[in-house]
């Protein structure tokens, strides 16, 4: 391990802003993307549905 304390770890030899700005943005973006897919899935229930149900068999649909 390269670090003697938590403060040392967060300081990143003076590059804390750049290193944590990079890792933090990645966590934020990937988390937000997953959340976005979950929201889109939830929104499916509110999509309009025609009442003429498609009864074709699978190989024609």
């Amino acid at each position: 391990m390269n670090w003697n304390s938590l403060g040392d770890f967060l300081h990143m030899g003076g590059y804390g802003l750049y290193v944590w700005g990079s890792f933090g943005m990645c966590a934020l973006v990937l988390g937000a993307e997953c959340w976005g897919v979950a929201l889109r899935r939830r929104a499916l229930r509110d999509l309009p549905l025609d009442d003429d149900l498609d009864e074709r068999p699978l190989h024609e649909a």
Partner: protein
Amino acid sequence: MSWTRYAAPQRFYPLAGRAVPWFAGLALLLAVVGLVIGLGVAPTDHQQGESYRIIFVHVPAAWMSMIIYLAMAFWAAIGLIFNTRLASMLAVALAPTGAWMTFLALWTGALWGKPTWGTWWVWDARLTSELILLFLYIGFMSLHAAIDDERRADRAAALLALVGVVNVPIIYFSVQWWNTLHQGASVSLTQAPSMATTMLWGMLIMALAFWMYSIAVALARTRVIILERERHARWARQALEPA
């Protein structure tokens, strides 16, 4: 039975549903291992100090931005040539993930460039071609969203994706073809890697984690797109109803 059996969205939907937790779990596991190596075990770089640790997310994001584009263009082409709906849906599902990876590559690159080069951004070949990649993804999604008819949207966006493929080798070879500020590849197929072993392992494991994440999230999004498009079919309605 053959693989084409799963070209039917109805059959692909449950298959993808079973695959997502595995890819997501692998992504999480690999990310934990990769972060421990990258932030804990890997030594300080004697030239760049601790700022080099940004490569543990920068390189995986940059690789995925190009790989996902190739995958997107591949599925878009399959959808265009063979008129298979599922292939087009896969292409559409990959685009946002590719765009985010491109954004992350640019963002982390800027945060690396500032302390290393003294500037957030420079209009050199590598950075500019990566920015064009972001515009290609945004163009693909915008064009697709602008056309109401899904299959026509698939075909138009597929053409754009295919034209844009030319940009991927330009990004990859830009550091060789032009005199750029961006450093050359530290890892390539033809030469021994020019970095410490733990650094290399950390980077490769993080790259695998990003790869697994991309598959998981793209498959999850494909499932949503399948239900959006097939919601008039009986099976999709049943899948939509809360169990």
